[in-house]
């Protein structure tokens, strides 16, 4: 087991870097982080569209969200694979494909989280802001969203955990993330599948469990501190 870690440890952690593209655990974490950071603005936009009073905006967006949530992520990955180059005219790599699929998929899920977060802010906040003369956009930007996002923080961390697990599907398009590398190591070593796949499982467990504990601690902390009054003039 120690030999295994010594020989393949670096490959497992960073893939071929620097003699090749970044891979392994480093790629998993960076990809997950990038996907979540890009999915958040998309989720906010979709949530706002779903809460909009204009039917023309609400219905198509709701339909898109239902379609994306009803499709397996693997399918979304294959679509990103075929359509992304056509859409952007750019030649896209596996990382970009995976990133696009994750952003779209998580954006649709985050839309619901953000919607719940926004609807959880007391109406009094919006009413007070509007009565002070702040327009729709300003109310949203200065009053509602900052509070909503703060309350959503534990959910966002949990979504990050989910995104990290989702990056493992890159295995199927040959992305050199950590599960793919573990399988390659297993094919070379052959006689220790339990050790190799056990290590892979433990790595994910340590990462995801650790993060979910952070989310839990965040939740506790947010519940303790009273809601701060939003500052209108800064």
């Amino acid at each position, binding site marked *: 087991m120690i030999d295994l870690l010594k020989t393949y440890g670096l490959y497992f952690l960073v893939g071929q870097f620097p003699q090749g593209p970044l891979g392994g655990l480093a790629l998993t974490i960076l990809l997950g982080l990038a996907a979540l950071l890009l999915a958040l603005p998309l989720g906010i936009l979709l949530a706002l569209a779903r809460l909009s009073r204009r039917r023309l905006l609400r219905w198509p967006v709701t339909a898109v969200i239902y379609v994306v949530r009803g*499709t397996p992520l693997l399918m979304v990955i294959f679509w990103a694979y075929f359509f992304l180059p056509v859409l952007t005219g750019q030649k896209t790599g596996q990382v970009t494909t995976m990133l696009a699929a994750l952003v779209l998929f998580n954006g649709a899920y985050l839309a619901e989280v953000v919607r719940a977060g926004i609807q959880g802010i007391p109406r009094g906040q919006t009413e007070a802001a509007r009565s002070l003369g702040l327009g729709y956009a300003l109310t949203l930007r200065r009053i509602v969203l900052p509070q909503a996002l703060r309350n959503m923080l534990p959910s966002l961390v949990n979504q990050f955990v989910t995104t990290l697990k989702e990056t*493992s599907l890159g295995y199927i398009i040959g992305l050199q993330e950590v599960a793919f590398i573990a*399988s390659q190591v297993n094919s070379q070593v052959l006689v220790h599948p339990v050790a190799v796949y056990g290590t892979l*499982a433990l790595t*994910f467990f340590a990462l995801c*469990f650790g993060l*979910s504990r952070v989310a839990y601690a965040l939740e506790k902390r947010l519940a303790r501190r009273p809601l701060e009054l939003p500052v209108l003039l800064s």
Partner: protein
Amino acid sequence: MAQFDFSIVTTGEFRGWLVSGFLLSLRLTCITWILSLPIATAIALCRLSSVAMLRGAGAVFVEGIRNIPLLVHLLFWYFAMPELLPETARTWLYDHGAESICAVIALTFYTSSYMAEDIRSGIRAVPATQLEAARALGFGYLASMRRVVLPQAVRIVVPPLISQTLNLWKNTSITTVIGTAELMYQAQRVETASFRGVETFGVTTLAYLSVSLVITALALWFHHRFPVRAT
């Protein structure tokens, strides 16, 4: 853009492949669901029990499984676990469709851990007074659960469980990595043979969506017909 010819995938040999994959996906979903529900209920009850060891075991089960991606579960159950079995068990496994069996095992563990959490939340949502009253009337713990608490929890628990069923349906697509010949596997096979990505994946997406929409419609109907009553 080349002309799209959907008849390639809706007739003939390729259609047969896709249909057999679709049926296997459905079978995997149903079998996993039937196995997961009792396991999930047992785990939920463990986590709510007064025996610390049971609570701990339940927590370990749920946290251990949920924090590992389904893909890794599948790889583990198919490539690692069988090596630990004795020879006769292993040969039996391989002669009887190891790919599907290991897929069901991995999916069952994964789905039941998520369902357990939803069931636990549902049970906790039933006011504690219900359980206390039942115990006061002389019912044992399990009997109180079975006759008083669980029936009330059902209404609260069904919507999240339906959503887990939707996740299960979508998760069957991942079993392609261990060679399970379900819909996604067959779609890849058809795409390789026909060179027609858009048609193949278009039809496959519609197949997945059809069942997803049925499940979602079921959830909406349930919410409409059995709204959660304020107590």
